[in-house]
C-alpha cells in the first residue's frame, strides 16, 4: 500500500500529514486533524452527514480518499464561522430551529453553503432539490428549508449593503 505526504488547506490552515492511500477523507478530518464536526452516518454514500466543501464544492467526504485532497482547499463546519461571527446559515439554523439532534447539521450547512453560492435566490423547490443529498431524521426538513431561506435573505441583504 502506498503512503503519501499530503498538504491540504483546511479551513484556511495548511495541514501536512503522512497517510495511507486508503485513508478516507472523512477519517483524515475527524481523526488526523481532530475536526469531529463532520459526521459519518452511513456506508453507501447515501446520507450526506460527511459533506464538506472541496475547492468550494460540496462533496461527500466518505467517498473520497484523503490523498485526493492533496493541494486542495477543504472547508468544514468548523471553518464556517468567521472571527467568532456566525455565518448567516448558522444563524438561520439557530433562529428557525433547523436542527434537533444536530448530527446531520454540519453536512446540511455545508451543502446549503454551496447551494447559496451557486444560487443566491433559490425557490423552496430549489432548496429541497439542492439538499436532497442530505438526510435528516429529526426535523422533517420544513425548518431546514426556512433556515436556508433566512440565510439567503440575510446574505442578499448583506451583499446589497456591500458587506463582505
Amino acid at each position: 500500500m502506498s503512503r503519501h505526504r499530503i498538504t491540504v488547506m483546511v479551513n484556511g490552515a495548511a495541514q501536512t500529514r503522512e497517510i495511507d492511500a486508503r485513508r478516507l477523507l472523512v477519517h483524515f478530518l475527524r481523526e488526523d486533524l481532530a475536526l469531529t464536526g463532520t459526521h459519518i452516518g452511513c456506508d453507501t454514500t447515501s446520507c450526506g452527514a460527511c459533506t464538506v466543501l472541496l475547492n468550494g464544492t460540496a462533496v461527500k467526504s466518505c467517498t473520497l480518499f484523503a490523498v485526493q485532497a492533496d493541494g486542495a482547499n477543504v472547508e468544514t463546519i468548523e471553518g464556517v464561522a468567521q472571527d467568532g461571527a456566525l455565518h448567516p446559515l448558522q444563524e438561520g439554523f439557530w433562529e428557525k430551529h433547523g436542527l434537533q439532534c444536530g448530527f446531520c447539521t454540519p453536512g446540511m450547512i455545508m451543502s446549503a453553503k454551496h447551494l447559496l453560492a451557486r444560487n443566491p435566490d433559490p425557490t423552496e423547490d430549489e432548496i429541497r432539490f439542492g439538499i436532497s443529498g442530505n438526510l435528516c431524521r429529526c426535523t422533517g426538513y420544513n425548518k431546514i428549508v426556512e433556515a436556508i431561506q433566512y440565510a439567503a435573505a440575510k446574505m442578499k441583504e448583506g451583499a446589497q449593503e456591500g458587506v463582505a
Partner: protein
Amino acid sequence: MTHVADRTQMMHEVPPSTSAQVPTTDDVRVTTPGRICGMGHRMKRKEDPRFIQGHGNYVDDVNLPGMLYLDIVRSPYAHAKLLKIDTSEALKIPGVLAVITGQDLKAAGNLHWMPTLMSDTQMVLPIDKVVYYAQEVCAVVAVDRYTAADAIEAVQVDYEPLPVVMDPYEALKDKVIVRDDKEQKTNHIWHWEAGDSAATDRIFAAAANVVREKIYLPRIHVASIETCGMVAHMDKVTGKMKIWMTSQAPHAHRTVFALVSGLPEQNIQIISPDIGGGFGGKVPVYPGYVCCAVASIVTGKPVKWVEDRSENLQADSFARDYHIDAELATDANGRITGLRVKTVADQGAADAAANPSKFPAGLYSICTGSYDMKAAHVAVDGVYTNKPPGGVAYRCSFRVTEAVHMIERMADIAAHELGIDPAEFRLRNFIRPDQFPYKSPTGWTYDSGNYEAALRKAMDMIGYADLRKEQAEKRARGELMGIGISSFTEVVGAGPSRDFDILGIKMFDSAEIRIHPTGKAIARFGTKSQGQGHETTYAQIVAEELGIPASDVAVEEGDTDTAPYGLGTYASRSTPTAGAAGAMAARKIKAKARRIAAYLLEVGDDELEWNVDRWQVKGSPDQHKTIQDIAFAAYTNHPPGMEAGLEAVDYYDPPNLTFPFGSYICVVDIDSGTGEVKVRRFVAVDDCGNIINPLVVEGQIHGGLTMGLAPALYEQIVYDENGQNLTGTFADYLLPTAMESPKWELGKTITPSPHHPLGAKGVGESPTVGAPPAIANAVVDALWHLGVRHIDIPITPEKVWKVLRAGGVMD
C-alpha cells in the same frame, strides 16, 4: 410461554382529577415576559451553538489516549450451528490485540448471555449457534479502526446452516425451534390479553355490521443518522469503569451493567453525551456494548465501538412486525359498539422489546382509540423467529403506532363500507368532552380530550368540503385523488409506579434543581434528550415556576454520576414525568423561598403572594423579594433554624399517563400510470396540552410526520427466504429526503392534562403515530371505487399499480 393476565383491572384505580372536563383553547398560555422566557415562548434553543459550529460531543467524537477499536464479525446466516471460529489469521495482523468469542465471555463469568429488558435472555456472543442474520459472532480489538476492519475479514468462521423460520405463523407450528436453550421447546413466548372477552363476543353476536380486516405492519428501523456506539474505559488503578454510550436511559443501563457484570454500581459511570437521534433505537442493550466494555476490562485500555450503518440496520432493534386480525362492530346508525383484535407479534430471536415489564405488547390496548364503545378485547401472542430481537422503537410509544394504525384503518373501512363520510363517522363516534376522564373498555383512563374540536379545526384548515367536491369531479374524469383522516389518541408518560416498571425499576422520573447565590440555577434530570431540546424546554419550566430567566438556568442530563436517577427519554415520557418533576422541585424551592422572603420582609408566610419572579406582600407589591434576592439570602442571611442553600429534588411518580391527541388530514394524488402516491397537502392538528416551547413542538411534529410518511410509503425491512436482510443499507432502506417530505401544515388545540403539574402531555411521538393511517386512508379512499379496502404499508407504487391494473386503469 408466559400467560400474562388481563391488565384491565389494574388500571382502574386512578385518582379523580380536579375537574371532570378541561376546557380547550387555541392560544398558547404565556404568563412570563420575554426576558424570563417561561412556558409558551418560542425560545431559540440553548444547545444549538455547539451543534451549528461542529462542536457537538457525540460518542464517536470521544478520543482517549491509547484508545483501541472494537469491530464485530457477524453471521451471514439466519440460523446456523457455529462449528469453529479460527482467529489465527486475524491475530497475525500487526495491531490486532485480541479476538473475543462466546467462549471467552463464558469463561469471564457467563457473560455470553445477558438479560433483556423484558426479562428474556439474549446471546451476547454465541457458542452453539446463531439465530439471526448479522448476529454478532465475535469481536476483534485493534489499535485503529482500519486494522480492526482488516481483522474482521481475516477471521474464519465455519457454520452449518440450519432450517430457518421467518414467518411467525410458521414459527407457531414449532417445527423449527429458534430457542433451544429454553426448557420449553416452543417459539410461542407469551400470550397477553386486555378487555372483556365475553362482553365483546356478545356485542359482535348482536352487531348490525361487522368489518373485518387483516393488517400487517412490517418491520422498520429507526435509522437515526448517528448509529450506536460506546467508548468504555476500565481504569484498573481506580477500579472505575467510565462509559460514553449512545443511551436513551443511562441510569437504567448502569444498573443493568452492574447486575450483569458484578462491577459495583458506584464504580460505573455512564455518560450519555450528545446523541444523534434515538427514537427508541438507543434503549436496548446491544451485544456490541457488552463486548466493548469487556474488551476494556480485558485490555485495561479505553475501547471504542461504533457500528456501521449496515450493522445498525441489520442487527439493531427493529420496530413493528405486527400481524393484526381486527374486527369492528357497528350498529345500524354507524355507531361503533365493539372491537375485537387478535395479533401475532414477531419478536425476533429474543423478547428484547423495550416495554414496561407488565406490558409485553406495550400499550397496544389503547387501540379503541378516540372512539366510545361498549366493549373491546385484544389478544396478542409473542413469537420467536430467526430475526434480530427488539420491537419497540421508531417513535411507537410502546406499540401505540400499531394500535392507532389498526383502529384508524378500521374506522375508515367501516365508514366507506357503510357509505358514511369518514369525518362524519368519526364525529359520530368520538368520545365526548363531557365523558372525560374516560374509562376505556381495555382499562385506560384518558385524562382529557376534545376530539371533535381537533377534527373540525383540521377540516377547516384543509377545506374538507371543497376537497370532497373536487374529488367527485376528478373521479368522474378518471383522475385519482384521495382524502384520508386520522384522529388518534396517544398514551404517553410511562408511568405510574403501580403498573409500570422496567426490569423492576419503577418509571418515575426526576429533577434536581439548585439555585446559586447569584440567582442562577443548575437543573439536572433523569431523562436524556437526543434532540428534543431539553436544555431549553426544561429551563423554560424552571423559568415558568421560579421566574429565573431560562437563559440563567443550566440544564444537564445524561451523566449518571451527577444526574438524579431516571428512566430516560423515549415514548414521549420526558415532559410528562421529568418535566413534572422539574415543576414539583421548583415548587419546593418556591415554598422555601417564601419562608426566606417572609423572614427578610418580616411578615408572615401567609401575607405573601407569588408574582412571576418574586414573593410580594399582598396588597403592597413594593414590598417584595425577587428570587435572586432570596437566592443570595439563602447563602448569606438565611433564617435561623433553617438550612442554608436553595435547592430541591423531586422524584415524580405520575398518577396517570397523559393522552395527547390530534386529527390529521392528508390529500393524495395518484399517478395512474406509475402508481406513485404524491402527498399534495397534509394538515396536522395536534393537542399536547399546555405547550412549553411552540417552536420545539413544531419541530417535533414536523420530524414525527416525516417519520410517519416514511413507513407509510417507503420503509420496510425485507428478508429473503433464507433470512438474509435485503434492505441492509441506505441504498435499499429508503429514508425520505427533502424532496419526498411534503410541506407540513400545522394547527393546534390545547386541552391541558388535569393531573400534570403544568397541564402538559408530551408530543414527540404523536405525529409518527397519527400520520401513517392518514396517508394509508387517503390512498385507499382514492382507490375505493376500484374495489380495494385495504393496502398494507409501505404503500409502494407497485402496490397501487396492482390495484389500478386490476381495476382496469392502464395509464
